[in-house]
Structure formats: structure tokens, C-alpha cells
């Protein structure tokens, strides 16, 4: 048996004894970023498939949440910077190797497009809306004419944004809990799941509800599969990964991870949606809220637990 005792002479707040540089704004940013990405992806996809009239909530109504979500995400990101006065430096360079640089450029493009997208539908969704300024009508005309171009741009941008929320974490090989290739697709799937839940909440017609009920079932199933794959990946990994996974499986984050993320946020909504599919009357808000709650707690668990996992000491 080998005993190793570490007596630290370090005195670095936020790092010792537990690294905690990224606080709640990062978790909130990742959640709203993923949600907005999912909503814009579905809106662009259904528009390009020519289903605008058949699925109005997907293309016109639900995307209104996206720019709000992106704005919250951006405010959170800015709030978390500690040297805010130099934030413009982000846009003085593009560094492909840095997920944060990549993500900030994606946000730079997707933010105005998301606003333009909902603006083009604003008067359709809210018929009482009346613009007093000519410039608003000009922008609206421009947005309506260019919907197809916006949708073509939104598809890759929304997927990039959704994946970025996971790759931001997985690129750090210093944090064994984050350092796995599943995290990008997993966060994208989670973002799409929360978006599908929001769309179901806004859905007006039975056709929309029926389709997104099936999409949601598929996405939850995929997410459970990806999480299982991630956990198995840790267990077949090196010692540092085995130590890291203990945080989720038998450590201080187990209750939150298993209880809130997997059971309450995925399995119960899956069962409820299955009942809905069978024709039982389940209040729409219950699975939707559970999925959103599971989604945000998932980000909190991954961001907080990942920072604790480390190589040394």
C-alpha cells in the first residue's frame, strides 16, 4: 500500500483547496446557450423543410425565447470575466484552438441573426404590434426577404453553439471529469432536449405536440445513452478518470447527478412523455419543467464537479 500525504504551502484563493474559478454564471450561460441553440436549430430546420405553416410554434413562436436566452448567456459570460475592461480583445483575434474564442465568435454571429429571425415574425405573432419608426419597418422587410439565408446560416451556427457549450469544458485535459469526447455531443443533445421541451410548451396544434413528443422521447433516450457512454468511458479510463468519476458515482455530486439530472430530469419526463404518446392526459408543464430543471442542474453539476477533478494532490 502506498500512502501519499500532501502538505500544502500554497495560498491561492479560488484554487486551494478546491478550484472554483468558474461560478454559477458559467453554468447558466451553458444552459441558455444550449437552449437557444436548440430552438434556433429546430426553427431553421423546419423553415428549410418548408414546414413553416404546418409547425408555426417551432418556426415563429418558440424562437422568441432564443434571443432572450442568448442575451442572458452573454450577460452571464461578461459578468464572470474578472478583467472586463479588456473584453473587446476577444474580437481582435480568432484562435481556433481556443474553444472560448471559437464560441465568442459564434455568439457574435448568431446573436444578431436570432434577433432578426424573431423580428421578422414579430408582427405575425403579435398582430397588435405597430412600428412608429420607418427604420424598424425597413429592418423587418430586410429580415423577411432574407429568412432563407438566415435559416441556412442558423443551421451550422446553432449546432456550433450547442456543441461549443460542451467542448468548452472537454478541451481542458487538466480536468479529468471534463476531458472526454462525449461532452460536446452530450451538451448539444441536452440543449436540443430542453429546446424540444420549450417547443412542446408553446405548441398550439396537436400535430406539433405529437411530433415533438416523439422527438423529445428520442432525444431523452439519446441523452441517457450518451451519459451512460460517458460514465463507462470514465470507468475504462486511467486512475485520474476513475477518481474523477467518483464525484458523480458515489461522491458529493451523486445525489444531484443521479437524483435530479438522470431520474427527475430525464427518466421521469421520458415516462410522462411515453404516457402522453399513449394518449393519457398529462399536464404539459410537468415534463417541460422537469426537463428544464434537469438541464440546468446538469450544467451546474458538470461545471462544479469538473473543477474539483485534477491531476495533482
Amino acid at each position: 500500500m502506498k500512502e501519499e500525504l500532501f502538505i500544502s504551502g500554497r495560498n491561492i484563493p479560488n484554487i486551494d483547496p478546491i478550484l472554483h474559478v468558474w461560478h454559477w454564471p458559467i453554468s447558466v450561460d451553458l444552459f441558455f446557450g444550449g437552449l437557444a441553440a436548440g430552438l434556433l436549430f429546430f426553427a431553421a430546420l423546419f423553415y428549410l423543410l418548408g414546414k413553416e405553416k404546418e409547425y408555426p410554434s417551432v418556426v415563429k413562436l418558440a424562437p422568441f425565447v432564443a434571443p432572450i436566452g442568448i442575451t442572458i448567456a452573454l450577460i452571464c459570460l461578461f459578468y464572470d470575466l474578472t478583467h472586463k475592461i479588456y473584453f473587446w480583445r476577444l474580437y481582435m483575434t480568432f484562435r481556433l484552438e481556443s474553444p472560448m474564442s471559437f464560441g465568442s465568435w459564434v455568439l457574435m454571429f448568431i446573436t444578431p441573426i436570432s434577433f432578426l429571425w424573431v423580428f421578422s415574425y414579430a408582427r405575425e405573432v403579435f398582430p397588435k404590434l405597430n412600428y412608429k419608426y420607418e427604420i424598424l419597418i425597413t429592418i423587418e422587410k430586410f429580415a423577411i426577404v432574407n429568412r432563407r439565408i438566415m435559416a441556412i446560416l442558423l443551421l451550422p451556427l446553432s449546432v456550433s453553439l450547442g456543441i461549443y457549450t460542451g467542448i468548452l469544458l472537454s478541451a481542458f485535459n487538466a480536468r479529468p471529469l471534463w476531458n472526454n469526447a462525449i461532452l460536446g455531443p452530450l451538451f448539444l443533445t441536452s440543449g436540443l432536449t430542453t429546446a424540444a421541451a420549450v417547443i412542446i410548451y408553446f405548441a398550439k396544434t396537436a400535430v406539433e405536440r405529437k411530433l415533438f413528443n416523439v422527438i423529445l422521447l428520442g432525444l431523452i433516450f439519446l441523452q441517457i445513452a450518451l451519459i451512460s457512454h460517458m460514465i463507462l468511458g470514465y470507468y475504462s479510463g486511467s486512475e485520474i478518470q476513475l477518481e474523477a468519476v467518483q464525484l458523480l458515482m458515489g461522491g458529493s455530486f451523486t445525489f444531484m447527478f443521479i437524483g435530479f439530472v438522470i431520474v427527475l430530469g430525464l427518466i421521469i419526463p421520458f415516462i410522462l412523455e411515453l404516457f402522453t404518446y399513449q394518449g393519457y392526459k398529462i399536464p404539459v408543464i410537468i415534463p417541460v419543467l422537469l426537463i428544464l430543471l434537469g438541464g440546468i442542474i446538469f450544467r451546474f453539476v458538470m461545471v462544479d464537479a469538473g473543477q474539483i477533478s485534477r491531476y495533482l494532490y
Partner: protein
Amino acid sequence: MRLAMVIDTKKCVGCSDCVVACQTENDVPIGYCRDWITETVNGTYPNLTLELRSERCNHCDNSPCVRCCPTGASHYGAGGAVIVTKNECIGCGACIESCPYDARYQHPDGYIDKCTFCHHRVSNGLLPACVSVCPTKCMYFGDLDNSHSEVSQLLRNRKYKTLAPEAGTKPQVTT
């Protein structure tokens, strides 16, 4: 030129002189440090061994902090030393998350700070502050590209290790 540091853990007594010298030389704010002492005890009682190490940024050849920096504030300076440009740093904390040695910290002024291998001293022909004050002379600093330098000779003639080589960062501080 490839700057590197070698710490002889057999000679280190853990006096923390290097820590204080660094804090004084670099105006490190109170409550923070760019270098530190670790003591690791290995074995099972009563067969124990103690290792004392003076640790700092490893100025890695494949630095994840340089890779992940979104603005380029973290970069390779002269001799491969990893340097942060204060007024390019936005304080996002990505470099802190990316460092397997946890060698960086958020300065109270907001930017990210770390060991610079005392580049302001080295460029004037001096040794880093920590090396110059070490009372047991257990710290060596020099150019790995020069086969006659003290560090090159030590690495040729002595057994050595780097910290967490499995992290793949190619650290340039050896013990």
C-alpha cells in the same frame, strides 16, 4: 534558447525562501503566490520517505493555457517561457482551468497572473529571484539548448522527473 529549471529535491529543505523572494521581487499581492513548497510523504509507516519540492508554472512546451487563451494574452515569450500580457487578458479563467499544475491565479486587479521565470531579470543576465536566494542552492536555471549549461548537464547525469507528464504538457521544470 529553451529556458528550464531543475530542482534538486535531495537538497531542498522547504524553507520557503523562494516563495518570499518571488513575492517580493514581483509584487505578488498578499495572500497569493506564484511559487510554493509541497511536501509529499510516500510509503507505509514506519517506512516513509519525504520529498520537498519548490513548485511553480512549468512553462510547458505544449502549454494548454496558451492553447485555450481566447485573446492570445497567454503566449510563449523568449526562451519558451509562458507569459501573460496583462492588458490583453480578459480574466475568463480558461487558462486556470486548463493548467494541470494549478499554477495560475486571478490577480485582485482582475487579470491572470503566474510565474514568468522572472523574464525581467533573466533578460538582464540575472537568475530568477527564487533561484538566486535559495540557501541550499537546490535550484538550477538555464538553457536546455546549450549542452554545457548546468541544467543540461544535470539532466544528463542525474535521474529526474517532471510533474504529471501524463497530462501531455511537456513541462520544463524538473525535479
